[in-house]
């Protein structure tokens, strides 16, 4: 049996058991499908449907985005299939009290990377073996060597450029934005009930897809994710206009690591620098 088939079997078995024993009402996983460029999410509510579950290198989606969806929540306790990198987003959702650990079941799946040419995050991955899950399936996988070095390569490539070159680069990239908000909707951490761009009294961020509006939107989104983004790369993957949003996220993550020795989503108990107050803080801060 191929590793993929054996992982699929483990997933199906695990999910079917959870459903038949009433541990969960819903399992969200992937349904690898012949001829598709990505293995789409599938929402399984019966042991029979669990046979559809599987895992392969087209399982790009970070399914933790569905954990706070009102439609999913009303279906009852939910198990979700997560890669190691997806667990980091779950950890942030836990740390920010968006979801409760007892309301979810994490089915971790060991992942050797997604994409034909592995996605950048997979070449620098240090979490192929998911941590903190209720159950983990799949054969053991090797971590890439020297993962840490290339972690922020897209951001560093831009740092090499002059300020004018960077401005020109981002202007050109952000001009392409069509304001479809796919980046926001696919982001597990963009859970605001009403996004600031949708607040119209006053209209804080212009909704028009002109350079000013696009810059405002993308900068606001970056700021809201600083210190939170776990680098799952979904925003960049789904951007229909191919804006390299990962470079923005890398830059923020690099600053967080350099300045605060912090990588977001490594544990649900972590203290996030921007939301943690300490009287022993040696830095003056802004006050």
């Amino acid at each position, binding site marked *: 049996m191929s590793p993929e088939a054996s992982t699929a079997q483990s997933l199906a078995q695990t999910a079917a058991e959870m459903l038949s024993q009433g541990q969960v009402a819903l399992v969200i996983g992937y349904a690898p499908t012949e*001829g*598709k*460029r*990505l*293995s*789409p*999410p*599938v*929402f399984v509510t019966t042991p029979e449907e669990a046979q559809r579950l599987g895992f392969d290198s087209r399982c790009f*989606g970070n399914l933790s*985005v*569905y954990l706070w*969806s*009102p*439609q*999913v929540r009303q279906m009852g306790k939910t198990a979700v299939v997560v890669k190691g990198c997806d667990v980091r987003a779950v950890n942030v959702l836990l740390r920010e009290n968006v979801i409760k650990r007892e309301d979810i079941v994490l089915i971790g799946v060991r992942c050797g990377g997604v994409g034909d040419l592995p996605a950048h995050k997979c070449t620098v991955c240090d979490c192929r073996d998911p941590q903190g899950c209720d159950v983990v399936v799949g054969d053991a996988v090797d971590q890439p060597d020297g993962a840490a070095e290339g972690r922020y390569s897209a951001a560093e490539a831009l740092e090499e450029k002059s300020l004018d070159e960077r401005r020109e680069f981002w202007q050109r990239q952000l001009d392409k934005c*069509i*304001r*479809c*908000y*796919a980046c*926001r*909707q*696919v982001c597990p951490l963009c859970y605001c009930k009403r996004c600031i761009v*949708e607040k119209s009294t006053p*209209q804080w961020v*212009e*909704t*028009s*897809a*002109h350079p000013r*509006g696009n810059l405002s939107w993308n900068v606001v989104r970056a700021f809201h994710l600083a210190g939170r983004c776990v680098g799952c790369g*979904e925003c960049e*993957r*789904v951007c*229909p*206009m*191919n804006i390299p949003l990962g470079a923005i996220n890398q830059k923020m993550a690099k600053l967080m690591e350099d300045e605060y020795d912090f990588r977001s989503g490594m544990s649900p108990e972590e203290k996030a620098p921007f939301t943690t107050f300490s009287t022993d803080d040696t830095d003056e801060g802004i006050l």
Partner: protein
Amino acid sequence: MPTNKLYEGVSDWLQSAVETLSAAGMTVIAPTQGEPGVVNLTRVTSAEAIAERYDNTLLPLKGQFFPITETLLEFERCEDGDVEIQTEPLPAPDEVIVLGCRPCDAAAMGTMDKVFQWDYDDVRYRARRDRATLVAFACTTPSPECFCTSVGGSPHGDEGSDVLVFGLGGDDSGGRVLLKVNTDKGRQFIDRLGDRVRPASEGVQPPSPPELARRFDTDAVKAWLDEGFDSDFWQQMALSCLGCGACSFLCPTCHCFDIVDEATWNRGQRRRNWDCCSFSLFTLHASGHNPRPEQFSRCRQRIMHKFKYFPERFGRIACVGCGRCIRACAAGRSLAEVLTEVDARQKG
């Protein structure tokens, strides 16, 4: 003069067309490759920039007539307290030649025309449409996501284009071509090309369109939708929808817009922007009530609008099967699959 006439273009007809039309002061819009693998319609002054092999442009043709954002008027508060309003001038009447849209995108303009010239004659849209000639390049290799034949179209469909161009050498545009004139505008276009095109020899016929199997029957889909508003199908089918606007914004027939005022202290602009029924704010009332409160009701609306409401009002489906929504979907959702399932339920 009869239309539907065939002309042959010699191998450098495209280069000649771009030069001649540009020299005559016309704006030539053609598919160009900006980034690797990404083709979009942009202004060209030379045929070398025109992409030769591409499935379709990333963004649909509609944006040439219904821009993603456009100024409608400008306003300014004067010192005496009055507000001065200046309507944005209409688009200049310079002729525009779109040289190389796909037949599905040209067909989509028929849908757009219905809406923008329905109960209200949208002068800004009409000005852009009136000045434009659409020269479509027939499809040789539909992409795996294409389903035009399921919604009444064809890779060689005539609808909406003034001229339809068939490559004779295998290439889309580079070599010898056959040009099929569909309208008077198309005839004028041919007339401007001089000796680079000539009436086709007797017996010359356009090549057969590439095979593209029909996946569903729109009559059956409509019949199911007529009764299916309250079906629990919608809740199931919508679970994976994330509620972004990629499908609508890339759709050649989606035409909903939002009107916003953008102002600094004393002056600003009123703009019209693309909008999308998948957004939760699309139907949110000022009272806080939302008649489409859940994502499934928004997914249902998008399909009902395209395959039931629009045909009932305008006698045509608001989908041309270009497949962009499928290619763009973050969650790998497929409109063609959903409609195939609806069709199966009807025939069940």
